[in-house]
């Protein structure tokens, strides 16, 4: 049997080999919806990280009390509670951001990443391992969000973090900020990641053979 990954390995796994967006195609709704600017994307990633971390820790703490047929209900309850808390904190301390993200913060509840991590990892592992796993997955999610947002914001408005980066003469590709741009950017990036991955495995194979 394979050796169970250490917490550190779990952390690294989440960043690229098991990246929730590019490799597992989970949590696509916020990935598409909030990536028209880097600030919104980072806030979203932070919110998801907080919820994921808290939900993983709590689930892992009570993992011995869970009954199989009620576990999903309990995961949902935990996640929904933390999402509500996040939503209110954003509304109280980052009002503009909260207004910009609008319904996509409560939609974290149905983000498959979190319930998937609770089910796959946190309900079976120690608190420490679950925490590391949450951080890894959250970092991977944040990286994916930031990469998409960077492409869209740069091409769509010539800016990064609302600071003009490209010369003023850049004809803003408005379509990148609109919904179609989101789909296309994600599609091409998924293709690019697959391509790299394929090339790497081919190289590894040719080295072996």
């Amino acid at each position, binding site marked *: 049997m394979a050796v169970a990954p250490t917490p550190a390995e779990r952390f690294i796994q989440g960043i690229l080999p098991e990246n929730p967006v590019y490799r597992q195609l989970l949590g696509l709704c916020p990935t598409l919806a909030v990536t028209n600017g880097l600030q919104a994307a980072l806030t979203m990633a932070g919110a998801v990280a907080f919820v994921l971390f808290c939900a993983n820790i709590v689930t892992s703490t009570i993992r011995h009390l869970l009954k199989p047929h009620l576990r999903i209900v309990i995961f949902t309850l935990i996640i929904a509670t933390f999402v509500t808390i996040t939503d209110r904190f954003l509304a109280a301390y980052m009002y503009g951001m909260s207004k910009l993200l609008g319904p996509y913060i409560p939609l974290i509840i*149905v*983000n*498959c990443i979190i319930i998937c991590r609770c089910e796959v990892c946190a309900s079976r592992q120690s608190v420490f391992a679950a925490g590391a796993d949450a951080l890894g997955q959250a970092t991977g999610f944040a990286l994916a969000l930031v990469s998409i947002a960077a492409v869209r914001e740069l091409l769509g408005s010539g800016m990064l973090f609302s600071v003009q980066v490209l010369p003023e003469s850049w004809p803003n590709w408005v379509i990148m900020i609109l*919904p179609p741009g*989101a789909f296309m950017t994600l599609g091409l990036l998924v293709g690019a990641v697959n391509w790299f991955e394929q090339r790497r495995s081919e190289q590894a194979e040719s080295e072996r053979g």
Partner: protein
Amino acid sequence: MLYFTDIILIALGAALVNNFVLYYFVGICPFIGVSRRIDMAIGMGFAVTFVISIAALLSWTITTFILMPGAPLSKFVAGWFMPPDAAAKVDLTILSYVVYIFAIASSVQFVEMYVRRFYPSLYRSFGVFLPLITTNCAILFACLIIFSHIVGVDNPADVWDLGKSLTLAVFGGVGFTIAITIMAGIREELELCDVPQSLRGAGITLLVAGILAMAFMGFTGVDSGLKKAMTPSPVQAQQSSRE
């Protein structure tokens, strides 16, 4: 008449102009996952439409009667412990997300059991999609939109009643069905195409979805135009009244 206009505008907006999938990006997971065959896509679409309507009914009822400030039930219960004017301010809206997701989860499970018991053939064809729907953002999103039109609305005339809420839900589901069926049709044809290896699967689907979203952008402004056509311009009305 005005009410009728509102209903039409809400329906049109939810189904086409602000399509749940292609404009708001909710329900992407089934949109990518279950759009490989047209019959499955239609099954998923109907299942979503059905559940979304039930969820809208429940969330409207719960919000109006329990959660919102001054809701009859919470006001009544709080009235036992505190003066009525304070009781009217009891605000339970913070529970809304938790309550909605629970209402969705349990109604999905209830529908699943019911259909399985009484319509086994129907259960065979679309029952398999029901568990997937619990974590479908489109349902929760519809509840949230309805919530935003009940709580915190400045103008009492703009607060949505059950009819408007259900319209949004049903036509949101119809919009989802339209989008996922078109997508499935395109993907069936894509099977015959020589797609670059790395783009196969999710990549090409997302690119096609982008083009589809672009097509749906053509609907933008249709609702505002229709609204102008259906309501006499107030300025004109004012001018004519002056004459």
